[in-house]
């Protein structure tokens, strides 16, 4: 009976930690988190953590609407069923794993301009500069874009 009680206590405590994320409270927050403006200045991406991985979501577009006033959608997506998805709020970066020294690898990035998904690595050059390298297969076949951190005036 005592054994079962002990287990239930540990189980409930672990559940609380896992579901609230409190277990990670002592882990320093990754410097990659935050809002970044892409090199062209056309979009801002919010990078966030989910589980042990990092992803990014488009949270601002310089031109959020088409000339007819309708919100921009993912019209270049190769999957026709997803072409009505709004670009604002779209998760365009997934699967990044922190590798230390400001490097994040094993992720992918989606370019709504042409509907292509690339392998991707990101690296913090400094606290406010992020180098995002999209590539095909091997890093040599790729292109690097430089993103700048932006700070929200009203959080």
């Amino acid at each position, binding site marked *: 009976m005592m054994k079962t009680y002990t287990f239930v206590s540990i189980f409930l405590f672990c559940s609380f930690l896992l579901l609230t994320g409190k277990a990670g409270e002592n882990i320093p927050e990754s410097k990659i988190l935050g809002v970044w403006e892409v090199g062209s200045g056309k979009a801002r991406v919010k990078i966030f953590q989910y589980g042990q991985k990092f992803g990014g979501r488009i949270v601002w577009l310089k031109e959020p609407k088409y000339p007819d006033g309708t919100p921009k959608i993912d019209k270049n997506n190769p999957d026709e069923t997803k072409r009505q998805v709004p670009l604002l709020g779209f998760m365009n970066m997934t699967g990044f794993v922190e590798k230390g020294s400001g490097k994040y690898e094993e992720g992918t990035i989606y370019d709504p301009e042409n509907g292509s998904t690339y392998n991707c690595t990101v690296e913090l050059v400094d606290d406010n500069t992020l180098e995002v390298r999209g590539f095909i297969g091997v890093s040599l076949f790729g*292109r690097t874009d430089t993103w700048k951190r932006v700070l929200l005036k009203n959080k």
Partner: protein
Amino acid sequence: MRIQTAIVCLLLLAKGALAQPDSLLIPPEEDFSKYADVVEAPTKRYCTSKVLGISPSRLITLAYDFQGSNSLNAGALEQFSSEKAAITNNHGMRFSANFPVISNVRWLLNLGINYLENKYTFGGGARQHPLHQSLMQNGLRSYGFNATVFKPFNEKYFSIIQGMAEFNGDLSLKDVPSLTQAKISASFILGRKYHDRLMAGIGLSRAYRGGELIYVPVVLYNYTSPGKKWGIEALLPVRAHFRYTVNARNMLFAGFELEGSSYRLNNLVQAHPGLINRNIELRRAELRPRVMYDFSLYKFIWISLQAGYRINFRYQLDEGDFYRSSFGKEIPYLSENKLSNTWYGQISINLVSP
């Protein structure tokens, strides 16, 4: 105890499942307007090497070039009198590869190689002139290595330095070109990026594109219209194209390219021991007005179809490699030839950069 362990595992799996991207694909209910009002964190910015909407950079290209029938009137060369010959066709494979070896915010280093061949098929009849014989047997080939550095200074100003070593001649695939016969080209451009859709620059180039060594000013101009439907991609005097973007995967171009080099004709000389001059080069240059259609076949694999006219404005034999200054006295060519103009077509398959 097994049941208890299983419960813990299921809980951990549930936590993992919550973290999967699929569950995050649905946009959160969030007021996105707050992301419009921002301040930039203090940091130095640099301009990039491209403008919005520009055609994708080609990493690897495999092309087949085919030209229609024309004629070559080879001028008198020492004891050989002039001779006119019909060329049934002129064709060859081309290959190039460009690798962005270093690519970061502060600078970009691109290394590349290229191979180009011109095979000539002549009409019937024996040919006596050494140039005709050499072209029939060997054609022309080029092997090149190049390096390009793009160096931004800040958000507006940048420089481009480009160098290339080429081995051109009536080489067979077995011939090993001599390093001393490499044709060295180089360019330096200083430029400004006015905004995301316009970059322009001016500089100086040492080049063989016109068939012989020249020092010429160069102008870089890459522009995309506000609607991103059309633009200009130019590096004068080498090439210039109007671009019409049908969509992100289909582009149309109209413009021209200057093509050519100076070819060392070692095999021609070896096949004719009676020639007094043992140091003969062919100055070949052509202007190619053309239209192109580039489209994405599958993801990063693009096909380029082009058709145009080949204006052969230089095809002379000359002695060695030297700078024929426009301001100096007139130096005659070793042999004056006339290659007539004709149409051409080219198809290429390309791996393009993201």
